[in-house]
């Protein structure tokens, strides 16, 4: 069946729907006027204002700290356990996998409040540590999913060959398994980092007032209306996201080879 012109135009309109709001946001981040959809001339003043906004900058720094540390930790934990889960049959394996499945399906708001209740129960004060735990828990099933997909076509005999040739458990992991799945590990890290940076739900419950991250700051600002410096920030975030998508796609392509 050949796709008709009518069909292509439908496809086109859906893309317009998906991209127009973002494009408008990007274009108007360079508009001189503070509000409204009337073009008043090109300006970088909102970018300037953004870089002087201590609230947004501190939020961004906090987001980067939490993003990098949670992505790194969750990738380590997730990779080690995915490899172990993949290699061995043991009692309770299916239980772990079903818990992960429930975790991936449960809405973030539920995860946020249930963890908040746990932290209260344990009398942990909210801050960096509690948010770190939250983000690791949030990203863990995604990391596992990425690695399971990669491991599903991993030849188990290669591990046996390594042991046969004298490699112990750790040597097998670092010389054989890790290099073969490394692109997937990088993808898992990037995915976790993105999830952590974008988390606009869990953080509201488990970060506390002492350690607020960027989405919380943005939310507080835009609740009361349009803030042009947020347009500028959105443009930067969109640009960085694009870059990440491109990097990930290249990594995934490499993996297929």
């Amino acid at each position, binding site marked *: 069946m050949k796709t008709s012109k009518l069909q292509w135009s439908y496809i086109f309109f859906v893309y317009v729907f998906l991209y127009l709001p973002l494009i408008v946001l990007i274009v108007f981040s360079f508009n001189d006027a503070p509000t409204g959809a009337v073009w008043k001339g090109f300006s970088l003043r909102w970018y300037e204002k953004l870089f002087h906004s201590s609230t947004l900058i501190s939020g961004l720094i906090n987001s980067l700290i939490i993003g990098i540390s949670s992505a790194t930790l969750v990738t380590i934990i997730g990779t080690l356990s995915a490899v172990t889960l993949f290699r061995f049959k043991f009692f309770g394996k299916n239980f772990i996998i079903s818990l992960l499945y429930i975790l991936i399906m449960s809405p973030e708001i539920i995860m946020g409040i249930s963890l908040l209740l746990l932290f209260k129960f344990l009398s942990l004060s909210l801050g960096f540590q509690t948010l770190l735990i939250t983000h690791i828990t949030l990203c863990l099933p995604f990391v596992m999913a990425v690695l399971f997909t990669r491991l599903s076509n991993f*030849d188990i*005999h*290669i591990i*046996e*060959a*390594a*042991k*046969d*040739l*004298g*490699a*112990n458990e750790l*040597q097998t992991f670092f*010389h*054989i398994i890790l*290099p*073969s799945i490394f692109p997937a590990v990088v993808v898992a890290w990037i995915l976790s980092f993105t999830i952590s940076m974008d988390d606009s739900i869990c953080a509201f419950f488990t970060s506390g007032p002492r350690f607020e991250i960027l989405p919380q700051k943005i939310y507080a600002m835009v609740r009361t209306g349009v803030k042009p410096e947020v347009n500028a920030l959105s443009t930067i975030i969109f640009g960085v996201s694009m870059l990440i998508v491109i990097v990930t796609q290249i990594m995934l392509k490499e993996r297929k080879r």
Partner: protein
Amino acid sequence: MEKQEVLVELRQVNKSFDGKSVLNNLDLKIYNGEFLTILGPSGCGKTTTLRLIAGFEHADSGDIILNGKRINNIPANNREVHTVFQNYALFPHMTVFDNIAFGLKMHKVPKTEIKDKVMEVLRIVKLEEFIDRKPHQLSGGQQQRVALARALVNKPLVLLLDEPLSALDASLRINMQKELKQLQRKLGITFVLVTHDREEALSMSDRVIVMNQGIIEQCGTPKNLYEEPNSIFVASFIGDVNVLKGEVLGFEDNLVKAKVEGRICNIKTKKQLNIGDKFTLLLRPEDMRIEKLSEHPDTEGLMVGNIETKIYKGATLDTTIKLNNGTIIKASEFFDEEYEDFDYNMNEQVSVGWVSGWEVILKDERA
């Protein structure tokens, strides 16, 4: 094979998976320097036996002994035994050199020594110019050689080969059979090969073990197994065979007088038989002899049937004969100078016999 020094021994080994018994009180000896093949259908326990020796599986009970030491509790990475895997299991992210050097690196061999050893083994398998290739840039046969080299470079006491030729196409497989055999002779390393291909087993091995359902059916030289199988299973697994039913009629000067599918004959055997005993007679198709019958034959005391199919095979004429009692006999006769154009008509009535002394008698236990 003069000094029969035992290198590997399995004593009363049992192994089951999920309650299903795979090996049953297995006893097995492997002699130093021999080329041993474990032959059997899939699921007979041959691969499990290999994996037990390699250390990838653990025996439920029994002892596995290598060079006089019990190795049950020594992990795979500390055993001086290496494996060539069925699909080669070459490390996809490493070059040929790195693949072969891996075992040496793991054993902390100095770098300069590694290089010399890898080059030496690459020369043996004739792959020097492929040293920097990745596995996916090699053909199946080349990958096979790398897998061999990777195991051999570590000078294992025993080299285990798990159906190493099954992934190759037919002509390459025959070449590799020859090369494997030559390599084994040259290096003097004990090879243990697992296969379900009887020709592979017969053509390469010093000794063949036939396994079935977790036990060893028979063990011997290829010639021994082919000519004197001790069960119908071994006989039919090793080659085509005719299974005939016989009954002891009496004894005549050290010979057993018997009736086999209607044919009265004298058979020489060491087996203890009594009058009236039923037995099974095994005969290879090439042992069979066919005689044409005259117009009105006296068929009393003969095995008589009709030619049902005939296939011209070049060197032989293969026929199947349906005996009057319904039994099908396969025969394979060579053309020779005297009777260059012997032939049969379809449905022609013939009498079937065999070269006396080539038959194998099995006492009928199942009867």
